[in-house]
């Protein structure tokens, strides 16, 4: 029983996490590339042309997984934040700040592809659709998190303040989503709803899942690379960095 506990805390210390992360990065990077290639092949070559939307719909193979990831990453950040605040572990704060840029990237990607998709579908680059609007707000929340951490010099305070903000944000995301939807129904006719997706073919679902897995692997690889940089930055003076990491 005690061995599992010890292992946990062993990897929670930056000194032992650093080399482990280094070993994992190539695997996840390779997985991201392979999965993305497979997903794009399924999405662009195999999936049938949509009867109503023609070829333009194929952007969903990037758009939908990116939206999923952007929401999922925010939840993961909140999870690390809760862990960091309650157990005062250093690594969790580093993980949160390592994930934020990737989350912001996916939120932006989702907005961008959504807008590209919207032009042929709705005839406008931007529509005040409930999902699109909520996604935009999620993007703002990511930016706020990154800006807050960048503005605080003391890393310990930056971690804690960021953690509080991430938790406040994660409580608010559903409220914001609900309120935007409410607002949207009040102004019916002003927008087209995206909620009624056409029934999906199996190949489409497979393509989307492959892409989601690719993004997942990419996120893990990027977070690990970034966490390694953060660990080096913060522990520059400690003995183990001088001994091992500087080789």
């Amino acid at each position: 029983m005690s061995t599992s506990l010890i292992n946990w805390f062993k990897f929670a210390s930056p000194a032992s996490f650093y080399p482990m992360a280094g070993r994992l990065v190539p695997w996840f990077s390779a997985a991201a590339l392979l999965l993305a290639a497979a997903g794009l092949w399924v999405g662009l070559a195999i999936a049938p042309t949509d009867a109503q939307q023609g070829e333009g719909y194929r952007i969903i193979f990037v758009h939908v997984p990116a939206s999923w990831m952007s929401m999922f990453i925010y939840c993961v950040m909140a999870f690390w934040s809760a862990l960091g605040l309650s157990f005062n572990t250093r690594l969790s704060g580093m993980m949160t700040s390592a994930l934020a840029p990737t989350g912001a990237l996916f939120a932006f990607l989702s907005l961008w592809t959504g807008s590209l998709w919207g032009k042929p579908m709705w005839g406008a680059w931007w529509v005040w659709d409930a999902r699109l609007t909520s996604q935009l707000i999620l993007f703002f929340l990511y930016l706020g998190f990154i800006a807050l951490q960048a503005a605080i010099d003391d890393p310990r305070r930056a971690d804690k303040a960021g953690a509080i903000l991430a938790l406040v944000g994660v409580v608010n995301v559903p409220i914001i989503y609900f309120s935007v939807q409410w607002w949207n129904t009040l102004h019916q006719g002003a927008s087209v709803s995206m909620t009624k997706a056409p029934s999906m073919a199996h190949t489409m679902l497979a393509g989307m899942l492959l892409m989601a897995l690719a993004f997942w692997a990419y996120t893990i690889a990027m977070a690990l690379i970034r966490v390694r940089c953060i660990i080096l930055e913060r522990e520059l003076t400690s003995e183990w960095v001088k001994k091992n990491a500087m080789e």
Partner: protein
Amino acid sequence: MLSVSHLTCQRGERVLFRDLSFALPASQWLQVAGSNGAGKTSLLRILAGLSEPAEGQVTWKGRRLREDRAAFHADLLYLGHQGALKEELTPLENLTLGLGMEGFSPGEEAAAEALGRFGLQGREQLPTRYLSAGQRRRVLLCRLMLRPAPLWILDEPFTALDVHAVGVLSRLIERHLASGGSAVLTSHQAMPLPPGLSVTL
């Protein structure tokens, strides 16, 4: 009794002090000495429970500070570097409102009397902005007379005081120690107090 064991304080990447241990019994005072930037104020802030040490722990009456914050803070009187004085309020308002937020209501008369003992009579109703640095410091020190607490933590209490005020303050501290209280002080000068414990950072 205040006791400190294996305390390590880190500011950014710099370790200010390491493995510091001491105990301060009742009726004793402790001088924290050290050059500028040695971590005197950081130590006081840890002792007061404002910041967390990187390692080690502080206990008051055998209990860790975090366990019962309210009970510890009821026993603690902390005077920091900054004045905690509002320029736009009068010394009297500063004292009564400040103590009011800590749950004490000494009354205007007691507050005015304390101000008088520090030589501030006639200035009770003047906005604090018109007082000199030494006078502001004296307004703060009036809290020592108005708010009973067994543990005093004072950061540089003797700075900017004139001879008369130094006398009043040292008598106050002596009386506090005689009645079973304890005090932690930082200072650059020698202090006009009976010999006490000392820690050098």
